[in-house]
């Protein structure tokens, strides 16, 4: 039966029974029951507007209804085709959402928010699994690899190794069993690209993995997803189950004789497991510690079998490359960095969130055009890319193109795509200390330079932030950083000094201000600042005193308040709650 109109009826209101009865009766009286379909749905949104209905195809929402109203709506809107304006929901004026930036190109994120990730048919409707079908029925593994080579796709996990080359190593390796792994251990603070892809478009990753498995000759795949992403894990579970039901995973896929199935393994809160050899140890049920390479996973990986391991985003690109061709992918980006990259813009920008832009775009374009500029129109200070092993890039490189090589040249890395913007209120020494604390905590302890070196660096940085910095500290940090970089096995250790070395390189004056003048120019380091209440501005509202976590603010109501600096922990809550901005940092 084809209906002319559909009415969605909210079942959330107490009176929804009466409303439904009135609706059905009125429709029947006008003989519209075969033309208009009534669908009872859960809530339609704002509970204060109940009872409510939405009439399609116009999408008109009628709110705060009574049975009499409903009869009127049926007569006017559904019978005569005239809208009942006084019952329509009028949206309170809200600031319109910013239009998506024209600088964005969506390849990996193309389906996000557009399809239901829990319904495989939605993905199939967007040409899903066509690339896999094409690969299995029309292409040899070599032809798939050739297409990948033309595309120029490089590993999106951070290191940027050409994906086709990785696949070719695993393909050529001999072994009775081979594995493909998807690295979904997105541990970089400030990065959530993979999470969004896994939660919003899981099948694109599954399809990419299946294609990789076909190329290298693997029958088994593992998803390694961090335990902090429960929604992603659940979405994946459903997706894998549905793919099996549809015969897109399992035996003899598309009648080609190719067998492939996937299992999910969860991380347990160890950052270093994002490193490929550590990740494989973790799947094997061991402590996730990296090992020396070679042998590379392509020769001897999971359970000593040839293994191909790629990042979520790398796999998600694969189906599109096969469908639209390597040439199409290579037409985006720069000469050596092809295609698009997702970035998680966070920190002090107006529009935080996930974006996908062609590689080669400048930092300025990402911060100002895509990110909408700095929060509260403050001054841009630096952007931290690549997570805790990346570096801070200062203002003078705002017009630098974002690609693997250029980022490396200025002392940072592409990483998985974290993009944390900092403004003039961010202390670079404090940020360096924060990252050092992170890597020190996450160092697995295998390599002495990383285990002990990061701790020594953290101690020096803490001293500097707390006003105990000494002349020579900067040089000591540089020296230690160099040892750690050279003497560690994996990317975590080798990259650990990056945030410190890059901030010393570009913001040496801030370090010097901390050490020699015992001052924090950004007014962040707690031991080097003091909160004071301006007696001329204070209105004695007592809000600061009531919110102070250590009760160090004294003063009667309607009288000037005073902070006791000996007890104050410099948390800054008083300054946040003050209605007249009377609390200042000195």
């Amino acid at each position, binding site marked *: 039966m084809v209906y002319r109109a559909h009415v969605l009826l909210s079942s959330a209101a107490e009176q929804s029974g009466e409303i439904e009865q009135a609706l059905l009766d009125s429709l029947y009286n006008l003989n519209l029951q075969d033309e208009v379909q009534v669908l009872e749905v859960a809530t339609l949104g704002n509970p204060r507007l109940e009872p409510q209905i939405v009439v399609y195809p116009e999408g008109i929402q009628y709110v705060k209804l009574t049975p009499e109203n409903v009869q009127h709506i049926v007569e006017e809107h559904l019978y005569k085709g005239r809208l009942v304006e006084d019952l329509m929901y009028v949206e309170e004026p809200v600031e319109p959402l910013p239009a998506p930036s024209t600088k964005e190109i969506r390849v990996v994120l193309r389906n996000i928010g557009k399809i239901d990730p829990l319904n495989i048919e939605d993905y199939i409707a967007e040409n899903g699994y066509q690339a896999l079908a094409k690969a299995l029925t029309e292409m040899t593994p070599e032809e798939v690899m050739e297409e990948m080579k033309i595309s120029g796709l490089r590993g999106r996990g951070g290191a940027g190794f050409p994906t086709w080359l990785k696949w070719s190593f695993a393909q050529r390796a001999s072994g009775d069993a081979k594995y493909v792994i998807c690295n979904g251990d997105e541990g970089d603070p*400030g990065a959530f690209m993979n999470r969004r892809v896994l939660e919003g478009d899981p099948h694109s990753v599954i399809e990419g993995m299946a294609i990789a498995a076909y190329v290298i000759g693997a029958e088994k795949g593992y998803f390694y997803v961090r335990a902090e992403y429960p929604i992603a894990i659940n979405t994946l579970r459903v997706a894998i189950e549905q793919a099996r039901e549809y015969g897109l995973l399992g035996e003899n896929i598309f009648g080609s004789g190719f067998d492939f199935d996937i299992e999910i*393994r969860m991380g347990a809160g160890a950052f270093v497991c994002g490193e490929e050899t550590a990740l494989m140890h973790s799947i094997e*049920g061991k402590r996730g510690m990296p090992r020396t390479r070679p042998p590379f996973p392509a020769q001897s990986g999971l359970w000593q079998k040839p293994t191909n391991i790629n990042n979520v985003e790398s796999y998600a690109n694969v189906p599109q490359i096969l469908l639209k061709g390597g040439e199409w992918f290579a037409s985006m980006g720069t000469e050596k960095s092809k295609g698009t990259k997702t970035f998680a813009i966070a920190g002090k920008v107006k529009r935080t969130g996930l974006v996908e832009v062609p590689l080669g775009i400048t930092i300025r374009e990402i911060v100002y055009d895509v990110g909408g500029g700095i929060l509260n129109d403050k001054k841009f200070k630096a952007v931290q890319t690549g997570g805790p092993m990346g570096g801070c890039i200062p203002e003078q490189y705002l017009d630098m193109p974002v690609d693997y090589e250029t980022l490396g040249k200025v002392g940072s890395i592409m990483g998985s795509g974290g993009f944390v913007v900092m403004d003039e209120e961010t202390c670079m020494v404090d940020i360096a200390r924060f990252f050092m604390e992170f890597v020190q905590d996450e160092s697995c302890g295998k390599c002495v330079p990383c285990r002990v070196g990061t701790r020594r660096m953290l101690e020096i940085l803490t001293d500097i932030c707390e006003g105990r910095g000494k002349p020579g500290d900067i040089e000591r940090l540089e020296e230690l950083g160099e040892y750690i970089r050279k003497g560690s096995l994996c990317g975590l250790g080798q990259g650990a000094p990056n945030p410190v070395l890059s901030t010393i390189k570009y913001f040496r004056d801030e370090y010097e201000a901390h050490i020699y003048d015992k001052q924090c120019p950004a007014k962040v380091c707690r031991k080097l600042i003091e909160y004071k209440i301006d007696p001329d501005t204070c209105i004695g509202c007592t809000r600061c005193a009531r919110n102070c976590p250590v009760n160090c603010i004294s003063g009667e109501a309607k009288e000037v308040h005073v902070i006791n600096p000996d007890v104050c922990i410099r948390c800054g809550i008083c300054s946040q709650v003050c209605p007249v901005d009377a609390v200042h940092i000195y």
Partner: protein
Amino acid sequence: MNVVSTEIMPDDPVVVPEKKAHMDAILDANRDRPGATMLVLTLLQEEFGYVSLPMQNYISEQLKVPLSHIYGVLTFYSSFRMTPIGRHQVNVCMGTACYVRGGPTVIDKLEQVLGVKVGETTEDNRFTLDICRCVGACSQAPVVMIDDDVIGRVKPQDIAKLLRKYE
């Protein structure tokens, strides 16, 4: 490293029959899967909230894996705990974005309201306060997770109200 008691507490899963049966079910379902140690420990942690030393001993016997290996895995990964936790787990995200946008201030306030330090459980066993790594909700920074609820744009002055929901 915290000293873990070898004493078997009265509510330890190894001595409570229903809990023990549950443990056995988890062990039986996974013992033959490759990489079983991690799978079993993750599931037990999810089920009971901790993996006590007596439990580790039992797992070691059952999986025929040395206790040292199990202890090694448990101490390596930060989401495992060896002691019971409070009814609700309050995790403050300390990812970069949350740190820059006031995560430390949120912790100060939580410590004050709950009267415990990070890593501790309140006396009434209601809350365990902890910090966690980036939860991937950076655009909502600063973020606090209470059990499975992700609460974004947390203001220190709202924290007391926030906690009231969790009994």
